[in-house]
């Protein structure tokens, strides 16, 4: 609880700071569950394909929103190599509600198109802004321990020469 007292005759306004993490228990469901299972056990990204439009859904889902049909179980393992479509990096720290930390500079993230796969947003290993401009081909680097969190099982994408 904080109060603000300002000099003479200025009104005092009371405010209450609330800093309480809220717990949740989130069920992945079957489709994301399969993604997490494959990431955990086999260090690979899988997703399903819409039977009608043949596009890969991302994330894997029960229905294709564009076709309004059930997505089915046509599962595909995707390459862990891709091309950077666009990137950005933090200069001013942001607050991350998931870990209660300040996300520090530079924290580079990018939209990456996986080879014959989908677009996903993830970190880049490269932190130098000048070098970031030239990053084109990247490959996923998986965590060796502590997997089971789906996309977060990939540590970041490393620049590769190709």
């Amino acid at each position, binding site marked *: 609880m904080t109060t603000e007292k300002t000099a003479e005759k200025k009104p005092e306004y009371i405010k209450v700071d609330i800093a309480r993490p809220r717990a949740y228990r*989130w069920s*992945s469901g079957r489709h994301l569950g399969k993604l997490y299972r494959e990431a955990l056990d086999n260090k690979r990204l899988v997703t399903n394909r819409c039977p009608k439009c043949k596009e890969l859904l991302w994330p894997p889902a029960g229905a294709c929103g564009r076709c309004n049909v059930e997505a089915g179980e046509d599962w595909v393992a995707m390459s862990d190599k891709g091309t950077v479509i666009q990137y950005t990096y933090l200069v001013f720290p942001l607050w991350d509600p998931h870990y209660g930390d300040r996300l520090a500079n530079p924290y580079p993230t990018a939209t990456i198109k996986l080879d014959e796969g989908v677009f996903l947003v993830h970190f880049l290993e490269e932190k130098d802004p000048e070098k970031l401009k030239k990053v084109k081909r990247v490959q996923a680097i998986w965590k060796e321990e502590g997997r089971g969190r789906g996309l977060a099982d990939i540590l970041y994408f490393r620049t590769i020469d190709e």
Partner: protein
Amino acid sequence: MAELMADRVEKLKDLDVFVYHGKIYIPNTYTAGAVGSQFLIELRDNKRIMGTKCPACDLVYVPARSVCKYCFAQLDQWVEVSDIGTLQTYTVAGQRNGVQPVDPPIIYGIIQLDGATTGLVHMLSEVDFEKLVIGMRVKAVFSEKRVGSILDIKYFKPLA
């Protein structure tokens, strides 16, 4: 912070479904506003319980409010109400929920203070739950250390 935010993954037996136990932490602030602040400051500095009066509807809101919900008038008339009132109803909370001001069991009551039209929700103490009766007269007990919070009133106790 890391321990506070620690997450864990639970794999459901025989099903390819994971349950993710995590936490979201978005700090925020609540501003009491001018009217709310004045109410709390009176508790803190003067051990006085104040309400705002709507003269057109002849009623007194405690805690103080800025507008009358019936006639939409903006309220700027402050009146002091008594620290003694009548118990309108009560209950006891036995379960812990992480946001309680004191440890359970907690007796909550709605008290209509003399001079107020509304009831005030607060805690009751120095009384056995079995001895509570609707219509009982109760009196506010103020905290020694007051900070500008509804808990500057520690609880209400039966008038001897």
